[in-house]
């Protein structure tokens, strides 16, 4: 015999309520999944777009570097190369050191201007010979 709904005892309401949480659960599961799936799909699309954007930026950066690098290297090379005057000075100093070392054995010390002139003469002659 069917018991009318209104006649059901209130003392079972709490237990019934917990059971009622399952009602329609299967439909909810499918409905919610569709939204979760759409949410994840949106995320993946956004991530793919971001990756494409980053790859584009990286490619532009590489292209810019490839364009600028050769002229930058040339400028750096020119900047670091010593001038002809500097080369001459260094060579004269080296020859003076060699001559100074020899002079210590034979000539009196302090006569630097003569040694300097002679060293300059030797370097100039050596350059002329090399050219």
């Amino acid at each position, binding site marked *: 015999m069917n018991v009318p*709904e*209104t006649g*059901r005892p*209130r*003392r079972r*309401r*709490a237990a*019934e*309520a*917990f059971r*009622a*949480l*399952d*009602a*329609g*659960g299967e439909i*909810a*599961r*499918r*409905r*919610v*999944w569709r*939204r*979760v*799936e759409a*949410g*994840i799909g949106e*995320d993946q699309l956004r991530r793919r777009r971001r990756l494409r954007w980053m790859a584009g930026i990286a490619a532009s950066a590489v292209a810019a570097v490839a364009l600028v690098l050769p002229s930058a290297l040339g400028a750096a090379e020119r900047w670091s190369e010593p001038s002809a005057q500097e080369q001459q000075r260094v060579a004269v100093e080296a020859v003076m050191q060699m001559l100074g070392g020899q002079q210590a054995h034979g000539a009196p010390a302090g006569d630097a201007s003569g040694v300097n002139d002679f060293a300059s003469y030797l370097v100039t002659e050596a350059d002329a010979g090399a050219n």
Partner: protein
Amino acid sequence: MAIAAGVFGDERELVRACQSGHEAALASFYERFFPPVYRYVLASVGSREDAEDITAEAFIKALRGIGGFRFQDEPKPVTAWLFRIARNEVVDHFRRARRRLAPSSLDGQQNDAPGRYDPWDTRDLVMDLSRALRTLPAAQREAIRLRLAAGLSTRQTAEVMGKPEGTVRSLLHHGIKAAKAAMER
């Protein structure tokens, strides 16, 4: 992507597959955790429509953030992590509702309209349960939602709540008594 059957037996294996973006793993994760999370949310908010919104949002957040999840020493930390996300979503829902509506209209007043209220309709039952739980102290309410609505074990409930199992048992004992009294008077 259709919902796949659970092929990932081990929880760690499932989470790792999700972390590497395995689509079937994401579906399997949802399959495994939807029932307890949905029941928990439904018992919290009392409305199936809101529960679906909140559950969807919780899963999207969880699956979005699963890459950053790290296993620690707990045996089942995923459950605790996921339920914390769901709880935050529920809290946000009530915060938004409070901002939108006056406090007196928070509990779904349409069910109380004369001539429409059926105490044995499952919608009303669920709404009644949610209301009865909201009259309890926060810790008792949370213990009941996790243990009885979501169907977690006492240990898992304790993990989610960050409380000792003994405390959870005591909360459940007092909470169930109070909830029954609130629903059956």
